[in-house]
């Protein structure tokens, strides 16, 4: 089962894990990304494309499920305004065995940083507003998955 969502509402990690694991898989790997409150961050805003963001996440989930023969993938990204501590992204990957689940989970979080149309805008306590710049290390991590089988 593949479940992909792009949503303005909070991500209920516990509820999503219950839904995802309804199949009783042998191994489930998870990644939970949260808003850091570094440097006096007051709000993080995630801009997205009304169609393409979901399409890119769905394609990544499909690719991961095929590559590691996963029975279940959950990929949920929040958009809109968030506060420090809020969950931005949830990745769940399940397999009969741990190695496939862990590899697929890492693939999904690395690739969604470069493949999905999402942009972070930070607002700080002192009123500064800035768009987050893409990091070379993120590009390098995402590119690694092109070479591995």
């Amino acid at each position, binding site marked *: 089962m593949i479940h992909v969502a792009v949503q303005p509402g909070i991500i209920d990690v516990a509820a999503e894990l219950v839904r995802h694991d309804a199949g009783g898989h042998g191994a489930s790997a998870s990644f939970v990304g949260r808003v850091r409150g570094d440097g006096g961050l007051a709000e993080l805003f995630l*801009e997205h494309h009304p169609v393409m963001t979901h399409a890119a996440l769905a394609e990544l989930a499909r690719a991961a499920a095929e590559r590691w023969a996963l029975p279940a993938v959950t990929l949920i*990204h929040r958009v809109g305004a968030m506060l420090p501590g809020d969950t931005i*992204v949830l990745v769940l990957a399940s397999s009969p065995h741990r190695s496939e689940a862990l590899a697929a989970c890492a693939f999904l979080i690395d690739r969604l940083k*470069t493949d999905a*149309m999402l*942009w972070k805008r930070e607002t700080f306590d002192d009123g500064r507003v800035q768009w*987050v*710049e*893409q990091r070379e290390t993120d590009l390098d991590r995402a590119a690694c998955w092109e070479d591995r089988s």
Partner: protein
Amino acid sequence: MQISYFSWVRERMGIAEEHVALPPDVAELSALIAWLAARDARGAHAFAEPERIRAAIDGTMIGPDARIADAREIALFPPVTGG
């Protein structure tokens, strides 16, 4: 052709999308970006650094040499920063 803008490209253009009639010699993405940069002050600001612009045609990411003549919608945006 519809062009949509995102993130700071949208802010600098002052609009989220527009319909444009392109001159016949604007056939590749790089030419479109140069045309927008030369059109007015907002375009000059948004597209001052073409190497920082990414694009997609009808949902597929494309490179600077990609042909755009048959596109319905082109999205122009900075490098993505999700996750």
